[in-house]
């Protein structure tokens, strides 16, 4: 666990340094006597760095701890997570071109088959309900969802 903690607090330390660096691009004091755009972020970055450093020192002084049970996901677990993240990311990029309904149809079919292992008929019924059904329902509520190249779904 110590190595994981070193990495986590190390990343936070680096992020704190990054925030400080960014804040230095802005004025510390504003033109109207008050703090400028860089004031808050500078001190937040400092606080983050100090906290991270203190934690790193504490981890160094503390004896090594084993990883909690189940901390590292199983291979199947990783595959499931990657499937979800992959489907979400793909749908984000495809939605503008394919439109909401078609993208969500593919999204649902993929996840229901890959993770749900549902029969084809149920997969199709649920996918149509979640994609075209949602488009229709939210259309009634005047929520405009991306239409894509076909221009109507």
């Amino acid at each position: 666990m110590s190595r994981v903690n070193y990495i986590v607090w190390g990343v936070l330390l680096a992020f704190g340094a990054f925030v400080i660096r960014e804040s230095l691009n802005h004025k510390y004091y504003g033109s109207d006597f008050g703090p400028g755009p860089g004031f808050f972020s500078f001190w937040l970055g400092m606080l983050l760095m100090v906290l991270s450093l203190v934690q790193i020192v504490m981890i160094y002084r503390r004896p090594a701890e084993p990883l909690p049970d189940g901390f590292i996901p199983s291979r199947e677990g990783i595959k499931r997570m990657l499937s979800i993240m992959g489907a979400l990311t793909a749908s984000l990029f495809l939605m503008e071109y394919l439109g909401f309904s078609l993208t969500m149809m593919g999204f649902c079919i993929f996840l229901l088959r890959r993770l749900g292992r549902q029969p084809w008929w149920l997969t199709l019924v649920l996918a149509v309900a979640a994609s075209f059904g949602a488009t229709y329902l939210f259309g009634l509520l005047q929520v405009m969802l991306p239409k894509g190249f076909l221009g109507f779904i």
Partner: protein
Amino acid sequence: MEAFQHLMTGFAAALSPMNLMFATIGCVLGTLIGVLPGLGPAAGTALLIPITFKLEPTSAIIMLAAIYYGAMYGGTITSVLINVPGEAASVVTCLDGYEMAKQGRAGAALGIAAIGSFFGGTVATFGLVLVALPLTRFALKFGPTEYFSLLLVGLTLVMGLAGKSLAKALVMGILGLIFSFVGVDPVEGAPRFTFGVAPLMDGIRFVPVVMGFFGIGEILINAERSLTGVMAGEGKVSSFFPRRDEWRISITSILRGTGLGFFLGLIPGTNSAVASFMSYSIERKVSSHPDKFGTGVIEGVAAPETANNANAALIPLFTLGIPGSPTIAILMGALIMNGLTPGPLLFSQHAAFVWAVIASLYIGNIILLILNLPLVGWWAKLLKIPYNILMVFILVFCIIGAYSLNNSLFDVGMMIFCGLLGYLFKKLDFPLAPAILTLILGPLMEQSLRESLSVSQGDFTIFFTRPISLFFLILAGVIMVTSAWQAWPAAIREESKGAEV
């Protein structure tokens, strides 16, 4: 007395068949919208505004207020059943509500939440009647200095939500603040942390972050383990009433939650999220078993759910024109769309409207109790839907919710990114609630600090020379010291335990 006469006139208007029907429709729609995971009260209320376009202003706002109340309760349902809070106010309900659901006690959690919400909401509505007029007069005395100090109290509460590690809670609070500063600086107009990305100029919106942290993050955590058996409430939901031994605890928690929520409701700037977080912290502090919080104790649901309804977030909106939460901000937008400007003048210029809406809040509470208590079992049937199917629907609604706020795919991307962050934070035992709280309070705090210092020409002593501000600063200091004091021995114990291992 004057207020009660106005209220009676308000009841006469609110109890007209048409307004009663709109209130009922609003409660049903709000609960449905709130139940849809990832949609939440803010997005739900915003989505339903077009429905009210053709109504006259009083009916429109009565319906929207009912939607808000319904969605708040709907958000509680999703917090308990699937660990997805509708809004920041329901975040804390997840901690014990979801754990209760996992033990097959979702019904009891939802039942006590409905009872607490009804009691708190009713007291708050009567409170609004009592304090509205004096508070409107007092409103002119509050300046940015007092607001800043008040918000500082809110931020120090982050320490009370420390969980296992104070350092981790502080880091999450800081990260929430940093997130909140992304966008165009409100005073100088300079873009901060935008890296040339145009959509970041508008800042990071609260809803995609919440949906990502709590919706996508939770789904990823569940997917990592297994997709069967992770859904809350594998056991049967047999009763929506607490056990006999839990009633006494629940009643005292509800009373404390009502008192606290109502008190905080009087203070402008503190939204229902602050009330629920603070209420949870207090319950843990006064409890004889604080270590059991987070494992499914009923007071962990009863108190915050009561407090966030007793908070009467509409008090600051109606009396001072200050929206206390994203949903209230949407209601404020709806009021302005209907030609009504919230603030002290509302009571004098549109008295009939205001009092009808206030009366409808009380009626809405009764409708919600009638609607929800018997239907708790029905809502709990959502548990029977296999998680691997429900999960896909949650993801679709999260995408719709994030997109529909601003018709922006960037917000969907932000939600996915926050989902990944949420997963990592949960995995590493970093509490998410402090980040959400500071994300909400950050911009308000920065703005009031900078306005105060503009007034004082850069002199920081302004915060100590104004009595109300000084009171809030002392309160913030006391909370900070108490929280640090409580966390310190725990850290030492943790260290010695580590040494033994």
